[in-house]
């Protein structure tokens, strides 16, 4: 039975590397153990306990994310005892605060009263802003539980909306601590941590100040990792639903790190940005510019037609007219004063393909080497 470095999960034997957790092995084998607090790249905290599994010989259930595999271990990931434990955890989470999606249960008992309270807190007549994009909701469906098993406990803390980027809704926080780890162990901005005790536990910035007056640099890593609707981008909250959007993966257009990001598109507009997880160079992380600096794409000030200056004023022109004019003027200057009387500034902002063509145009068509870009400026 105890072959070296072999573990048996749900009756199947797998080999593992020393140091791997039960969760690591399960993930590799596509065995679905649910997680909430677990965050890749950060120290396992084991706080949410949703990932508990049954291990033969252990006197209690063990969190898969924080339990290293040992040789000969026999693990059950969905035994009746495991399922019962997960249901209990989910029921307690759903009963606290403002989880007003459908999983809360609409059997009429206190539905109306509860919904009205939440809508008052949210200043919105809609269901939870992350409805359809929430790990807690997913798990409540999976384990068929609602929020009625325990008396409801409202959150003692009001929502924080005073910064331009992130809404912190403590009434939907399940205190999994992922945001704390993202901030301290992934981005190392050290802006937030657990504060207060017991029923008053809250994720706080130093001195329980709003993020805007803290060390927070609005990288939004915490928003991306929050499994529920406790941290949501201000511009997304109640404006965009996940199912209305399509995601297009691309490369950030700000600094030279070249972070991989997803543009979330609704009605031909970029409405949200998220980091692409699991790939270099940024493994999901972004900074405030990459994550929140996309307004310019939709800006009404974008140039929409070619412009030609006449008597000191711009007037709109067609492409044909504008390009004919440019070709004629450049052509004439080239003939009259020689190719080296023309210069081209290409750009660190445009693509490789475009830079290549700018170089080809300058050298093969204008016949000068007067080409440079301003990136050193």
């Amino acid at each position, binding site marked *: 039975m105890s072959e070296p470095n072999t573990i048996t999960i749900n009756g199947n034997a797998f080999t593992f590397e020393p140091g791997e957790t039960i969760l690591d092995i399960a993930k590799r084998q596509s065995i679905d153990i649910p997680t909430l607090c677990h965050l890749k790249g950060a120290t396992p905290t084991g706080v949410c306990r949703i990932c508990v599994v049954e291990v033969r010989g252990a006197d209690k259930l063990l969190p898969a994310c924080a339990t290293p595999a040992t040789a000969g271990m026999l693990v059950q990931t969905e035994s009746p005892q495991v399922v019962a434990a997960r249901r209990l955890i989910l029921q307690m989470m759903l009963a606290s605060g403002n989880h007003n999606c459908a999983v809360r249960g609409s059997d009429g008992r206190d539905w109306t009263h509860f919904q009205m309270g939440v809508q008052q807190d949210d200043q919105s007549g809609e269901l939870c802003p992350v409805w359809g994009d929430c790990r807690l909701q997913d798990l409540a469906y999976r384990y068929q539980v609602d929020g009625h098993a325990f008396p409801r406990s409202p959150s003692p803390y009001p929502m924080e909306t005073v910064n331009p980027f992130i809404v912190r809704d403590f009434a939907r926080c399940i205190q999994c601590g992922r945001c704390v780890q993202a901030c301290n162990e992934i981005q*190392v901005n050290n802006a937030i941590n657990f504060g207060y005790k017991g029923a008053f536990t809250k994720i706080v910035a130093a001195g329980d100040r709003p993020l805007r007056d803290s060390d927070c640099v609005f990288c939004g890593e915490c928003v991306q990792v929050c499994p529920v609707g406790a941290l949501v981008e201000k511009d997304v909250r109640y404006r965009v639903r996940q199912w209305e959007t399509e995601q297009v993966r*691309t490369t950030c*257009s700000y600094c030279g790190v*070249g972070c991989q990001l997803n543009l979330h598109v609704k009605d031909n507009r970029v409405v949200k940005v998220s980091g692409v997880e699991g790939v270099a160079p940024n493994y999901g992380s972004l900074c405030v510019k990459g994550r929140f600096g996309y307004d310019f794409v939709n800006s009404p000030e974008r140039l929409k037609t*070619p412009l030609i200056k006449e008597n000191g004023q711009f007037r709109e022109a067609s492409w044909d007219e504008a390009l004919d004019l440019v070709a004629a003027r450049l052509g004439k200057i080239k003939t009259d004063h020689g190719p080296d009387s023309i210069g081209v500034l290409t*750009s660190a902002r445009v*693509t490789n393909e475009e830079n*290549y063509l700018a170089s080809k145009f300058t050298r093969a068509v204008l016949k000068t080497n007067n080409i440079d870009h301003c990136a*050193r400026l």
Partner: protein
Amino acid sequence: MTNTIGCIEKADLILVTGSNTTENHPVISAFIKRAVSFKGTKLIVVDPRRVKIASFAHQWLRPNLGTDVAWINGMMNVIIREERYAREYIESRTVGFEELKKAVADYTPERVAEITGIPAKQLVDAARMYAEAKAGSIVYCMGITQHTTGTDNVKSLANLAMLCGNVGIAGGGVNPLRGQNNVQGACDMGGLPDVFSGYQKVADPQLRERMAAAWGVTGLPDKPGLQVTAMIPKAHSGEVKALYIIGENPLVSDPDLNHAQQSFEHLEFLVVQDIFLTETARIADVVLPAACFAEKDGTFSNTERRVQRVRKAVDAPGQARQDWQIICDLATRMGYPMAYESSEAIMAEIATVTPSYAGISYPRIEHQGLHWPCPNPEHPGTPILHIGQFSSGKGVFNAIAFIPPAEAVDAEYPLYLTTGRVLYHYHTGTMTMKSEGLMDRAPESFVEIARQDAIAHGLDEGAMATIASRRGSIQARVQISAKAVPGTVFIPFHYAQAAANTLTNAALDPISGIPEFKVCAVRLSKAA
């Protein structure tokens, strides 16, 4: 970068200099902060400002502005005197060590202290710390390059890295952080006056012939062209009559703006192709509306030479078009038919004429980008340069002497000014200033000043100050900050309304043509 971003976490020691990493390359700063906080990696920061990353450092050295060659030579002096250098590596892989030894011999810690203001003991400690590391990574940015001695500074850092055998190993390297998304690519693709794509010299007749054949033309010009910092004065003198500017805003980013503005006005014809009516576009004769990154397909090459995909997510507004389509149409109208089916077809052509990109194609980089050099379709790319051998044969030590910055403080202009960026804005702000959120966090320009300088000038926090240099003056709000060291103030260059580059010195590095943005002399007074 000689190494990758991920490689930073493999270093035993990181030396960050001239980089306000947490604000300008936040995601790379996270790699550095993680290494230091959780992996026992040592961090030395050398920067004239007490930037945020310095708070993570085991040692922060504060050099006077523009004295980088001196402290680097000083560190090498210590390492050589104490025989802490990588003897075998130097013997087998480099040339010029004896010359270097001579050149740094009189940069004793005591003399360096006089030039740089770095206490001798701190310099010695830092030198030992760097030399002791198994893998030491040097990370730098514009604080090193934007000097009249920028090229010297960069070469000096390379000297230091080679001296300790840190080039060509995992976790080591000399790693410049590129400020803009595709600076690397603009250079790689021949957006430079002396080279075709892949740094192939225009002066080389064979290469010229090859390119001419590939492009189906004759008579490609053989003389290297003008750098941007030379084009603008030549516009002023009338030698350059027309400029075609794609996606740049030199009227905020150039040094000595008043002079640049006049130069542009002398042009006979100015075409600007951009996504907004920038300060530069406003004075153009023709403005062409371009698509932004979210509206186009293509590739960018990041600071670690990784070629990555850009994908179209939305349509461009109105009649705006992708830059490559505009260039094709213009070329065609000027008698050279240029047409491609897609950006992918352009990349296919790039691969045929650019040895370092020869193995790169869209299918290969669909999921994860590749690092050039990537010479053929089977090649896995080159994450770390110079492993085993320098790509040019032997690593060359350059003996370099310290030269002071072009402008020094005096009775009339008694404070040093250095410029840079803030977290919430990017370059000239064309994009970031369209964001309410980013503007809320960083609404206007400011002058960052040490408390004792503020008191000496009678300036209160939040008051408006006039900052004047020999070239012009601007107004900005006073921000008293622990980042500033007495004697030196800082102004971000993003804001056109208080353009820091009205003040900066256009003195150039003789080789790179980069202006000395990081040092000039100013005086401060309460705004009237």
